[in-house]
């Protein structure tokens, strides 16, 4: 285990803990972003640049911004802090986390992924990536695209004004 890996994983775990335990929600989001960056750095350590940078682009550039927008649009400034925790929440949270950890661990060790070792050579030409996406991983790609389209249509439906059948009366100042 080298020093860089140790540093990255310590930062990732520490920021993940901070993201869950800080009182101010915006601080939590910023810590979560640090966690995302740590995960991206782990990808870079595994010599897969494209996935690492895509991780930063999607999670730091888009997902965290989305969370921030959701926070600021749904709560007013005074509500940006968490209420105190209750003991029962601790119990349930621990149980759910352990269950999730067991599920993930079992599925990872059971699959063929756990036996694989990261290949040191670089095979990241755009062509190889495109071919992998369009041939080997076509079905997951299509499923993802469908899911995202459904989400987009749903978001558009939610955002539609309630009285969109009525004629627009916007031109009053014309």
């Amino acid at each position, binding site marked *: 285990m080298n020093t860089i890996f140790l540093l990255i994983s310590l930062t990732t775990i520490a920021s993940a803990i901070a993201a869950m335990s800080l009182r101010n929600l*915006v*601080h939590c989001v*910023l810590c979560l*972003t640090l966690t995302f960056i740590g995960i*991206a750095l782990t990808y870079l350590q595994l010599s897969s*640049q*494209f996935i690492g*940078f*895509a991780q*930063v*682009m999607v999670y*730091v*550039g*888009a997902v*965290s*911004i989305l969370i*921030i*927008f959701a926070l*600021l649009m749904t709560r007013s400034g005074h509500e940006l802090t968490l209420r105190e925790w209750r003991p029962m929440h601790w119990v349930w949270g621990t149980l759910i986390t352990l269950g999730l950890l067991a599920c993930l661990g079992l599925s990872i060790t059971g699959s063929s992924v756990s036996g694989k070792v990261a290949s040191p050579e*670089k095979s*990241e*030409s*755009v*062509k190889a990536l495109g071919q992998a996406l369009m041939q080997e991983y076509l079905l997951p790609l299509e499923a993802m695209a469908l899911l995202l389209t459904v989400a987009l249509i749903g978001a558009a439906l939610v955002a539609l004004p309630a009285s969109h059948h009525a004629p627009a009366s916007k031109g009053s*100042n*014309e």
Partner: protein
Amino acid sequence: MWFEGLPNAIKASLVLKAPEGLRPLMAAALSTMPILSAFGGLFAVVTLLERKMLGRIQNRYGPNRVGPLGIFQPVADGIKMLTKEDIVPKTADHLIHFLAPLVLLVTAMLGLSVIPFGQKLVAVEFEAGIVFFFAVGGAAELAVFMAGWASRNKYALLGSLRAIAQMVSYEIPLILSSVCVLMVTGSLSHTEVVQTQSGGITSWFLFTPWGFLGCILFLISTLAEVNRSPFDIPEAESELIAGHMTEYSGFKYAVFFLAEFAMCALTATLFLGGYHAPLPVLSIIPGPVWLLSKLTLLVLLFIWIRGTMPRLRSDQLMEFGWKFMLPMSVINLVSTGIWIALDGGLLGWLVTGACNFGAYLGLSRWLADHPNHRKRVYQYADGPINAA
């Protein structure tokens, strides 16, 4: 050319003189310091140029007091900015308020670090360099939010939210228009993109139908991405008192310009042949000179636009981004695909050119006919003229 290996040779000899343990550090410092100093210097020159050019456009002199023709104005400004009191609002989130400009600066610098400045002159060589560039660009949005939120000022927060909405919207056409270049070169590395464009002005991607459209879309998205006029709504001095920058003193322009430099350097790399000379004869002039002059030309173009274009309204900005820029960049992707399938040539020129031009005409006419886009008539402002 004889000078191509020179910077690397100097660096190697300097590194060898350093003690054994310090060599990696020395190498890193020697790679980064030229970038930092060159862009710091360029920043000083460009601020002066911007004020002079804006003055010329607005029929006044611009700075002309410090030194002959005001050329020492940047020095005076620098001294002023450095000695200015650094004021932090009492209720601000001090840590984040301090970190925000730092993050912004670091992302701009990281973006510049992957740009090839000449043959073998690139600070960090990445296989997926262009993805890296956009990834750090995405982190800049977070910095803008941090600046706006940590100031605890409603104008700053509003400005930063506007800025983020704008940056997120225009990031899509920005990335899609650079994807065309990646499709043609088949590589995600800056170095290879520049290599493909070697051999004079005719092999630059700007001079292909898809590259021309891509370059224009890219430049417009860049303007929006760095919050520059006519997309400077987030800064809007008159309404939002400089948005997320409200509670900061001094550093503002430096950070603002560095992000712009990074984007312009990427534009030059993707579409204008990077460090290559326009004519093979002219390649006796070193590559960094060419790259920096292309970059300065682009910044001058931005200043020209700033001096002559009115600011867009917020809804106009969003509609332009989503209804015009996005479809056009998708169409450009398709025509790039046709170009690759036809393997360039005259037929490729005709087909992709017709495709892009037709799409531009059709889309703009169709959008202009839309009732939302008719000229707005204000009853009290325009009334008498309409009545006449």
